[in-house]
């Protein structure tokens, strides 16, 4: 893959493009010379077991973690050379709960809006719109620690969309949610794509979620992308009546059950469980 060194914002086909993107932790290569791109305006699913490198990849794309080598363009900006331009154009919802439980839903949105420089009438209008969009108007004055897991996720997504980012990163957005709350979050993610043309990159280890929600899926395993394409194409290539799980087994030679292939560091697993518990 050639890297043209393009900087600055252009109307581009790919909302995300990685170039030999790599991250090492001591001897472990968490993300290994990754080259892929995600088309603008799509829901792009990163599927893989715990420890596959999904969260590390997202952290690099959101500028939270510097790459060991290589780089990526997000919304046309280089994450290594122009991190603050990247930050202006993205939204991010961490796997952990990033809404502040000690503040109300309204206050969480208010602080975010202020950080992004949304002011005056526009600020009030966007907050009101976000609360309405996420069905949180009645809960706006309550402190977030009283919210259900689904409400918290919807609030966090609303918060990350206030400044209308071109690219939205969602790290395991439905982890620990019950099926009803999960479907409601899916619905809202689709609406973001359709209403705002937002490119959404989400990580998941939920095969059904990847299949039903994502326009494009990349299967990640041991720091590499082993398979990428539309869910229907991937399944068709794997054989008649194949599922994404079959695609995964074919690509990696390993079975993924409940998100856990051997591996996934203790820290990853502990964090995932903790988040899941708090979402219940």
């Amino acid at each position, binding site marked *: 893959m050639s890297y043209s060194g393009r900087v600055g914002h252009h109307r581009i086909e790919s909302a995300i493009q990685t170039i030999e993107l790599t991250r090492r932790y001591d001897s472990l290569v968490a993300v290994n010379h990754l080259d892929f791109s995600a088309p603008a305006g799509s829901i792009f699913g990163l599927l893989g077991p715990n420890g596959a490198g999904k969260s590390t990849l997202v952290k690099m794309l959101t500028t939270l973690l510097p790459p060991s080598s290589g780089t990526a363009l997000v919304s046309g900006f280089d994450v290594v050379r122009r991190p603050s331009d990247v930050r202006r154009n993205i939204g991010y919802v961490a796997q952990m709960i*990033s809404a502040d*439980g000690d503040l109300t839903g309204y206050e969480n949105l208010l*602080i975010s809006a202020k950080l992004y*420089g949304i002011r005056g009438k526009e600020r009030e209008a966007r907050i009101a719109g976000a609360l309405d969009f996420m069905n949180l108007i009645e809960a706006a004055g309550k402190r977030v620690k009283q919210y259900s897991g689904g409400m918290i996720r919807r609030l966090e997504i609303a918060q990350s969309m206030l400044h209308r980012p071109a690219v939205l990163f969602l790290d395991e957005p439905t982890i620990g949610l019950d099926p009803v709350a999960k479907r409601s979050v899916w619905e809202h993610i689709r609406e973001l794509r359709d209403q705002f043309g937002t490119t959404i990159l989400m990580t998941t280890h939920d095969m059904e979620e990847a299949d039903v929600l994502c326009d494009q899926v990349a299967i990640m395993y041991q720091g590499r992308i082993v398979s990428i394409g539309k869910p229907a194409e991937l399944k068709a290539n794997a054989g008649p009546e194949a599922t994404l799980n079959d695609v995964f087994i074919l690509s990696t030679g390993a079975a993924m059950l409940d998100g856990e292939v051997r591996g996934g560091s203790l820290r990853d697993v502990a964090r995932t469980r903790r988040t899941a518990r708090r979402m219940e």
Partner: protein
Amino acid sequence: MSQELAARHGAWSDTPQPLALLLQILAVAEADVRKVLHDPWELFSRMLQPVLWLVIFAPVFSRTRVIPTGGLRYIDFMAPGVLAQSVMFGAIFYGISIIWERDQGILQKFLVSPAPRVALVAGRALSSTFRGVAQTIVVYIVALVMRVALQFEPWRIAGVVFSVMLGAATFSTLSLVAACIVRSRDRFVGVGQMMTMPLFLASNAIYPLSMMPQWLRVVARVNPLSYQVDLLRGLMVQGGHTVLGFEMDVAVQVLWLAVLMAIATKLYPRIVV
């Protein structure tokens, strides 16, 4: 829709940079202040320590009459020291909230926002000054009850508020630096305790510099708490005066704050890695 697209890239682009920075600092501080206002219990729980010092320690210690207070009653000599140490103790454990927010995932949200790192650090320092001022009110109430000879001229009150804000900002930023280095709550509690007592005892809070052995006096002259106490002693009580001079007191504290801010800004992103 096209307006949406236009607005999309408008984040801060229409705002002069110093103003944007100021607004971002205020937003970071506001989040914290709102939390304290929702649950002010923490502020009340901090009332106990100054009460102990002024109600128990001062009356007992003043009977010894061996401490050269520069003509002040011991309780008057000590009240500024108690205020300074209570602000310092509060601020020095402030870093634990950063680790807590990191563990929760709240901090990551600030770090992916366009706010520069220095705004995140300065916002924290600013919110700790709010706590410091709230504590000052508590200490003044206790001091009044104990008949400390406080002075209430407006310029002195303004000076005390300024001084407390400077102290709270300095020690909370020190705490932030420590948090970015130790990165876990358990370790931080130990480190916080390791910092508070030496800072307190190697200062002029409860005895003057002139009483210290030479080596300790050297340490105390580096310790920002000494300058904080000295400044407060010159402002708060009748007959009080600074030993080191107002300008020196302010200058050394500002220098400490600037250095700590620079270090904290550098280290801050590391806390989430």
